[in-house]
């Protein structure tokens, strides 16, 4: 427990099925890449927790170290790192994201 930021990240990704570490909030994203991932998740009707890394410099660096991934946004599903903006967009376009979510047991609503 010598790394409180990592402990908090672990807690967040185990308490919530889908967690997006992002810049800004789902309602007011502060970065185009974060906004893209929010749009994809909203389009799929996925409930997710958005965590604003800009509110906390320790988290902003901490999430990069935790995931071994140098950029934000970062999407976690069921405690597992799925990817950043480019990966999420590609997976959404190919249908893999929908598959990944449903095989993880996450509810989605296909937009009519």
């Amino acid at each position, binding site marked *: 427990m010598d790394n409180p930021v990592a402990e908090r990240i672990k807690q967040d990704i185990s308490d919530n099925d889908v967690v997006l570490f992002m810049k800004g909030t789902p309602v007011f994203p*502060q970065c185009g890449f974060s906004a893209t991932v929010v749009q994809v998740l909203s389009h799929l009707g996925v409930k997710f927790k958005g965590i604003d890394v800009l509110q906390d410099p320790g988290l902003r660096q901490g999430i990069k170290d935790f995931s071994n991934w140098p950029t934000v946004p970062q999407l976690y599903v069921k405690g597992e790192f799925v*990817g950043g903006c*480019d*990966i999420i967009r590609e997976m959404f376009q190919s249908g893999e994201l929908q598959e990944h979510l449903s095989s993880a047991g996450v509810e989605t609503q296909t937009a009519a």
Partner: protein
Amino acid sequence: MKTAERIEEKLTAALSPLRLTVVDDSHKHEGHSGWREGGGTHFRVEVVSELFDGKSRVDRQRMVYNLLADELSDTVHALQLKTLAPLEDTRR
């Protein structure tokens, strides 16, 4: 050397790409966080390499990020990546 050239050089040396495009997109992000005068902050990279074969998207992008760790901790703020194995490359 410009950052784009350095990125190109590093990726070429490490990945022996069949195709590599590095575009400085910084002007599109004018005024965004991380942006600064003169470019060199936002890049778009498309790279096709045999080394990506059989690797997950996350692993491929981690490879690229690791190769460019110095740039990312310096001026590069955003890196849009498309990492393809040769068979996935439809533009050849």
